[in-house]
């Protein structure tokens, strides 16, 4: 319901149309917002349900992956693609419990090289 209200508030902040039309640009987002708010109200009236959360180890694993990806993205901007991607994949493997040195070294090396060759050399994407 809150999501719908936010949509309506955002839509009402749009400037009025300069074109002569019966349906201004804010009409559709407002309509969608009202519908979502109404559906949210129906949902709120029913008993709230959440799926079972018996995945404590999994949740930390998921957060580790997400944090590594976000850090990799930031690194990419500052140190460039190759070191950022290699560091990100090493961090992901370590956080996911990989301890074999050969895998920790080889997988990031191969992954980064393959991605770089495919995108930068073949598809000419400026990584």
């Amino acid at each position, binding site marked *: 319901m809150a999501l719908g209200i936010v949509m309506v508030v955002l839509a009402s902040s749009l400037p009025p149309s300069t*074109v002569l*039309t019966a*349906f201004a*640009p804010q009409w559709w987002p407002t309509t969608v917002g009202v519908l979502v708010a109404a559906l949210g109200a129906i949902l709120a009236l029913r008993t709230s349900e959440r799926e079972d959360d018996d995945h404590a180890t999994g949740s930390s694993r998921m957060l580790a992956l997400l944090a590594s990806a976000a850090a990799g993205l930031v690194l990419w901007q500052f140190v460039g693609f190759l070191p950022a991607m290699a560091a990100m*994949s090493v961090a992901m493997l370590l956080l*996911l419990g990989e301890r074999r040195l050969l895998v920790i070294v080889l997988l990031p090396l191969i*992954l980064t090289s393959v991605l770089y060759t495919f995108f930068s050399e073949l598809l000419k994407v400026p990584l």
Partner: protein
Amino acid sequence: MTPLLDGFAALGDPFVLLCIAIGAAIGMLVGTFPGITATMAIALASGFTLTLDPVPGLAVLLTIYVAANFGDRVPAILVNTPGTPASIATTFDGYPMAKKGLAGVALTTSAFASAVGSVLGIIVLMTAAIPLSRIALEFGPAETFALVVFGLTMMVTVSGSRPVKGFIAGGLGLFLATVGRDPITGADRFTFGELAVADGVPFIAAIIGLFGVAEILDGARRRQDQVLEPIRQFGRWWPTRSELRRMGKPLAIGAGVGAVVGAIPATGGDIGGIIAWSQAKRASKHPEEFGHGSIEGLTAVDTSSNATLGPSVTTTLALGIPGDSVMAVMIGSLIIWGIQPGPALFSSRPDLVFTIAGIMLLATAVALGLSLLRLRGVARLLELHPRYLWVVVLAACMVGTFAINNSIVDVGVMLVFGILGIVMRRFGFPAGPLVLGLILGELAEANLRRALEIGGPANILTSPIAVGILLLSIAAVAGPPVVQRLRARRANQPTTEPSRKDIPS
């Protein structure tokens, strides 16, 4: 030249054939690894293929689509885990067959049934797409709006969640689709002065986030640490004559069910497989074998599941409404290539139907060939710990998303949508309707506003086609609960879940 010859001629390019080979390899692998769906693979591959021309790009995406529907049968048969949702029903009889020492026969039967289903579906595409698009060409704004509502409604009803949550997800998608320029007046909306979103939310990045990143993260959250233990005794590889004779009827049932289910917007191989299994059981002389390793059950399921592919592409391209979740993602790529799915497409480019059909036929042949290779090596792949896959796919998602617009902002958008996808899953909101709302939002808004400006609500309410489609949408949402309640009342039982006693768990 005729559209047929023009369409097939486009496949003479060796680069297109190479793209089909690459797509087949990716599709088979994607299907084989449980946890990577065809939807996710297509979303990810969109980033790679947008730099290609449309035909080679379509060759990669469509071949992944076809081949994933072959590869996903392997884990369903060998480890009782569907590689993608489309092979859920394959586990009903495939795994029991493998446990009886008939894994080889199950894999061969599945491959041939899948190929027959796929070819029949492609014949539907070749024969029905252009006539269907000619009918839809007569559609005005009111009918087009009604069609979008129908597509969205179907996506909500089949997404496995409570409809209210599905509609809220769809509403969020429709709202996000308003970011950027207003389709009628051209005024900026919700861009906050940022050029990066002037053309709207980058939907390929959003799709990769919702289907790629969120699925990997969710897989990492749910997956237990133990690796899968595949069945290693394959037994004989070819069905006996009596087994072959028993496959005729389920092949026909599977093909018929698949063709119908595939043509209904938003429904795919998973639903087609389950319905065909139930129908084949009903028609069989040995219904007691179903769920315990019936070759008839396996044949019906895999024929049907793959027969949905062609009709699904037909609905997507001829009407502009995605036939299943993979097609919802593929529409995004088509739009970026300048191919706007919808009734006008095939009147301006009828050859495209046959190019697409040709790609799918070649993809089926290659996937069948790969499926018939002895699959002991593939079975060994199933023993790999998924952490390697998570790292590889996440890295590929990031680079693939960057490649779309050479924009690091898009990669950030992808991660944000990945987080949104996880939150939505956590609270039971399906991602499919959001994506559909995002892709079809502009079409819905522009056509509704045009319809209302032309003649007010009467313009919609006096169109028999629009009213018919809207009534169908209402029936799709309201029908199942009403039927369920009536059945419960008749049986004098409380209204809980529908009876699924026919389907093995």
